[in-house]
């Protein structure tokens, strides 16, 4: 039987023992959120050899604004069927933070398992209009800076400060789409030449279409188990040996947009630099953001980034961060990696970031 690795922050050892995701698609017109979640909830229980009755805690991540109504998480809970009643919670954040809440909940020792899920049907509305409502309602939202224009400001800062070029952005996009060819759940899966990408017109300078993520409908689910329970449920549990998240100010003018101090802080607490990294899954939906986050994590060029294709190939909102954790865990669960890094982001222009180190025994 495999051993349990040391956790960096003195946490009770908790591992990802099952991961499932839906195929990301531009618009899933066949299913509502519950129907999107049902198959992956069923699948993740099978993978972890558990039933819902054996789950101690449930936590989900979603946002009401994608459906344009209150309580999108309420009906989604029907995908589980919480009867008899269960201990359940929800964050209005990417489901990576639902995983964090569940990880914390498992620290006390009274519960050993948790189900985490996230979902987003981006196809229901206009994301640029919706995400404008996330900005400071007094000083920023009334100016209607759309999502892509804001990302262009950040891209410009990356170029101006010498961290990357337009060609680097194209290289990141081409690599992501090519990697996605091996991932049946991904959405933009093709082999593009860097030249062809650079021949695209600017959408908002310096961003071209390939610098943007696709619009995706999708969902994901993870099962966590603590201590011996994880060893019982998985041959190679993906242990969360370090995890932390930090937020920065909302005031764009008060941040250096080309640098992610919150990622760097979280990476330092989670112990990214304490060992080799097989690969990293980064939640960087705009190509220039990969450069920023990779620098903040202190990862060298020898570390493979987003072998799943990452968010530039599939970007289901509110589930995308959790998918990064799932992809980073799956390689360990499959016995193909021993130490991986997962990153998730929230808020405009990388305002909030979560970093986790996953290890096999």
């Amino acid at each position, binding site marked *: 039987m495999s051993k349990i690795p040391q956790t960096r922050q003195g*946490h009770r050892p908790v591992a990802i023992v099952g991961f499932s995701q839906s195929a990301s698609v531009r618009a899933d017109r066949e299913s*509502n959120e519950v129907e999107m979640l049902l198959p992956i909830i069923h699948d993740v229980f099978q993978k972890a050899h558990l039933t819902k009755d054996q789950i101690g805690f*449930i936590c989900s991540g979603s*946002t*009401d*604004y994608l*459906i*344009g*109504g*209150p*309580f999108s*998480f*309420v*009906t989604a*809970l029907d995908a589980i069927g*919480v*009867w*008899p*009643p*269960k*201990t*359940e*919670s*929800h*964050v*209005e*954040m990417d489901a990576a*933070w639902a995983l*964090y*809440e569940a990880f*914390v909940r498992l*620290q*006390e*020792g*009274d519960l050993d398992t948790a189900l985490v899920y996230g979902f987003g049907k981006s196809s229901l509305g206009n994301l640029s209009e*919706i*995400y404008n*409502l*996330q*900005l400071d*309602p*007094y000083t*920023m*939202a009334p100016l209607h800076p759309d999502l892509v224009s804001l990302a262009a400001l950040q891209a410009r800062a990356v170029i101006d400060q010498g961290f990357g070029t337009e060609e680097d952005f194209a290289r990141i996009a081409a690599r992501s789409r090519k990697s996605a060819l091996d991932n049946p759940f991904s959405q933009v899966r093709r082999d593009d030449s860097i030249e062809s990408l650079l021949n695209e017109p600017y959408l908002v300078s310096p961003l071209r279409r390939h610098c943007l993520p696709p619009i995706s409908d999708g969902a994901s689910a993870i099962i966590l188990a603590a201590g011996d329970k994880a060893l019982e449920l998985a041959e190679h549990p993906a242990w969360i040996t370090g995890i*932390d*998240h*930090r*937020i*920065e*100010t*909302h*005031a764009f003018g*008060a941040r250096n947009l080309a640098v992610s*101090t*919150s990622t760097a802080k979280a990476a330092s607490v989670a112990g990214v630099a304490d060992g080799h990294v097989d690969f990293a899954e980064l939640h960087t939906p705009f190509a220039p953001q990969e450069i920023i986050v990779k620098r903040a994590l202190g990862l060298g060029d020898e570390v493979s980034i987003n072998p799943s294709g990452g968010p530039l190939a599939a970007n289901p909102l509110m589930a995308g961060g959790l998918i990064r954790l799932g992809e980073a865990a799956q390689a360990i669960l499959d016995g193909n990696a021993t130490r991986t890094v997962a990153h998730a982001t*929230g*808020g*405009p222009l990388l*305002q*909030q970031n979560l970093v986790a180190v996953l290890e096999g025994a």
Partner: protein
Amino acid sequence: MANRVAVIGIGQTHHKSKRDDVSIAGLLREAAQRALDDSGCTWADIDAVVVGKAPDMFEGIMMPEHFLAAALGAVGKPMMRVHTAGSVGGSTALVAAHLVAGGIHQRVLTVAFEKQSDSDAMWALSVPQPFSAPLLAGAGGYFAPIIRAYMRRSGAPSDVGMRVAVKDRLQALKNPYAHLHMPDISMKMVEESVLLWDPLHYLESCPSSDGAAAMVLGSEDAAKIAEASTGRRPAWVHGMAMRSEPTMFAGRNQVNPQAGRDCAADVYAQAGITNPRAELDCAEVYVPFSWYEPMWLENLGFAAEGEGWKLTESGATALDGGDIPWNCSGGVLSSNPIGASGMLRFLEAALQVRGLAGDHQVEDARKALGHAYGGGAQFFAMWVVGADRPE
């Protein structure tokens, strides 16, 4: 093994229909600063911030915690945002408490709010959603038929709800933070107010409020330091629980939901309580519509099924002369900044066992229940707090 959790700082705003004098950030800052001052802490002492509020459409801002990070001193720290419908104020406090119980942090600031005047909750609750039949009813319209079912099942006389409406407003007169201060409140006044959703009159419904609630939750060490520096004792968390059940299914007991009963049983077991009416000194329970007092008296085990209204009718739940006072602060019926309403229940319970509830203090309160529910009464969050450090 969970670490002990203490409530070491408490703050709230004066709740009003419209707080035109402050931004949302200013509103939260007001409550948070009061909680910090009460705990003897500064912003730098806080390890993490947990924010809660009800649906974002209540203000029209998507995930407002992002623009609130700086105002709440969270820059460079972990920040989380909880949303579990109307129970969110309670759930938010519990998420923060677990960060301490799980040994992650020493001191966590938790803040919940609603600035209802920025939007229209009735509208936000009624917008048609994809794939769902619109209710177009708001919360009162949703709960009125369930209340009708309770009246039929229990045979309660029709004036019980009005008694709760009067009692909670009279108690609110002793709470300077309460939104509604109605010294002339009477049964006649409630009865003559507009019938909104049969059987609920206008004055049997909660108000729409702007307001925020905040607490500093700390570890045992943090509690010692706070008590030494402020001279005020903490409230200790003796039990905490959340439960959810599906919104709708055939046979669901909407009057007396299983999730509420299970949640109460869990929290009482942790706190070593077998008879809540006898062993608790008071309770702050989420009663947004008058009839939910007798209904929750039964759901929470203070009375047998069908008997809750008799406690209300006998005056047992009144601060003045009752043996188990409910909602001494005036409750949700007197202040309803929706996202904060659950946290107000939790912090009012803590104020009572700290002996800091002022004019609405229950004499020598040692153990109190804080309760919140949400959605169509399928989400529950509760804690029991005590004056004594738990074993």
